[in-house]
């Protein structure tokens, strides 16, 4: 079935945000997922049509990124961080517990059951919340400092359709609604949740307690390299700035 005319309009609206329409492809695929529950062939055709690409070109992009799913995702997506730090802090145990509880493997969805919401379980990579390890994400909202018990309760609540609120975020809607926000359409939930969680402000609170602050009146001068070559030498070039080395080399 082809997508609704309104979806086509929204796909065009996304493409129009950019100087070159193709830049809209990632958010467009997020929109497709919000409408279709996964990246469908129809969704790929719609993106291709709007952008003047071939379906193969769109598929090539869609299959590169982990967040785009080719199998239907459940009402909720539960991601357990099992990258090293979270794994060590208990993420491995949480993931094993949820796998057993939901009777699914990685990137699989619970079987349909009357009166229960479906859940897709996935082990995910570092989600930039290491100070709250172990971390579980529901529809890409943060659930901090989890235990097997809390995560188990969390999926029970999700399955039963009870209201669930993220540790640092809003009340949980659904994976599809989350995908719509990623496509760039606001959902009005921005003002829910705190500005920061406790670990985010632990240094700030300690500084206040001890009367520490950035000085108002210091004066100093930094040793700033005058020549790009000097800057290259000082940078951690092994990591990300290899381009500048090459640039220098090509200047020679």
């Amino acid at each position, binding site marked *: 079935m082809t997508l609704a005319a309104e979806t086509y309009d929204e796909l065009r609206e996304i493409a129009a945000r950019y100087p070159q329409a193709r830049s809209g492809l990632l958010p467009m695929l997020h929109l497709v997922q919000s409408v279709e529950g996964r990246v469908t062939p129809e969704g790929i055709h719609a993106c291709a049509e709007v952008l003047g690409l071939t379906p193969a070109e769109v598929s090539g992009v869609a299959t590169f990124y982990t967040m785009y799913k080719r199998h239907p995702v459940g009402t909720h997506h539960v991601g357990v961080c099992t990258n090293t730090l979270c794994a060590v802090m208990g993420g491995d145990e949480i993931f094993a517990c949820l796998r057993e509880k939901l009777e699914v493997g990685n990137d699989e969805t619970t079987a349909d059951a009357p009166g229960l919401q479906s859940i897709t379980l996935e082990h995910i990579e570092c989600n930039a919340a290491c100070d709250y390890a172990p971390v579980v994400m529901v529809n890409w909202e943060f659930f901090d400092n989890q235990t097997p018990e809390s995560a188990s309760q969390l999926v029970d609540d999700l399955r039963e359709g009870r209201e669930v609120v993220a540790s640092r975020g809003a009340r949980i809607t659904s994976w599809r609604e989350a995908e719509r926000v990623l496509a760039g359409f606001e959902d009005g939930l921005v003002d829910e949740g705190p500005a920061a969680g406790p670990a985010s402000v632990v240094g*700030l609170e300690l500084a206040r307690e001890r009367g520490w602050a950035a000085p108002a009146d210091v004066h100093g001068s930094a040793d700033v390299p005058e020549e790009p070559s000097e800057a290259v030498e000082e940078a951690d070039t092994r990591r990300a700035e290899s381009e500048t080395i090459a640039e220098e080399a090509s200047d020679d």
Partner: protein
Amino acid sequence: MTDTLTPVLTANWGDERAWTLPAYAEQGGYDALDVALGMAPEDVQTMVKDSGLRGRGGAGFPTGVKWGFLPPPDPENPKPRYLVVNADESEPGTCKDIPLMMASPHTLVEGVIISSYAIRAERAFIYVRGEVLHVIRRLQAAVREAYAAGHLGTNIHGSGYDLDLVVHAGAGAYICGEETALLDSLEGRRGQPRLRPPFPAVAGLYASPTVINNAESIASVPAIVKNGADWFAGMGTEKSAGVGIFSLSGHVKKPGQYEAPLGITLRKLIELAGGVREGHELKFWTPGGSSTPLFTQEHLDVTLDFEGVQAAGSMLGTRALQIFDDSVCVVRAVLRWTEFYKHESCGKCTPCREGTWWLVQVLERLEKGDGKPEDLDLLLDQCDNILGRSFCALGDGATSPITSSIQYFRDEYLAHLEQGGCPFDPATSTAWAESK
């Protein structure tokens, strides 16, 4: 003497509704924009250069110098210029940009406007990883509020300067933190790194002159413009100026974000964080994320600035301090990071695509106790064939935990072989494990 902790970027994170424009404005938000718009763009650039601000995304390249790589405007061939913010924070251990954008997205938005003005860009993009829904909500709302208040759009603050800003969500690919892969991704393609030259400053987004900076770098700009280059340069060390957010995670009593002048030590930070978990000792740690070689107890007094960490054999990276105590098996930790690099390798170049796969094979059998002592040399040989031979820094980074862990913990690898398995019980390292 500067105080031990110096909240600048984190200063307003505890404020009521800190993410909203009224709360940000009450703290003097967008005042720096007026200061900048009253200056010539070149002078703003000079100010950022003189402040000594070095890239906060890992490499530590001087931000102002990077801006200076843009070719001068050519009236004969006027190409638009772009500013792209790298907010794809995905390096394991790194968790500073996400709380920054959640608590105070306007700090970043104001930084984007000032930086775009300084480089004369008329369009800017914030490329934020897709897996952080609430952060994306906060950024979208901040941009909307900034447009409504006249901080974005046409004739900003009556200056005649125009800027459009788009918040762009990624879709789950670590490699898109690599700046040229990010550009390909932002152009709607697979996120694979580009061959250089040409460099982004010359031919970046849509083959136009482009500056790409990390979110924390750009968010640092308003404070520099407001307080002056000398103020920023007066903190930190001579070559690693200013303050930065240090992210402590793992086996410390109070993990979290600690904003301090560059040059602080882990010994000091662990003390501030209440020490290592009761009954345990520090075993190994990453100074700047999993791609930076591991450190041990002997590195507690290394100054955490670019020079100090480099001299000690690692990299300051993103100041992602992951702390592991003596309950953790280093082979298990390194295997898991290696599985990550294998999963995230974009597949463009052979050393990284094939090499990370082979690294996992060998590490897996070592962790299970099925390996041979020669496997350690095999691993080092594999690393030697990846490091410096990969298309981008992902492959290089994949080798860091392996080579450094063999350097410091060779005996622990061998103990796996002697015991025919892992000598550690993973249950003892969890957040809920009873202390010894």
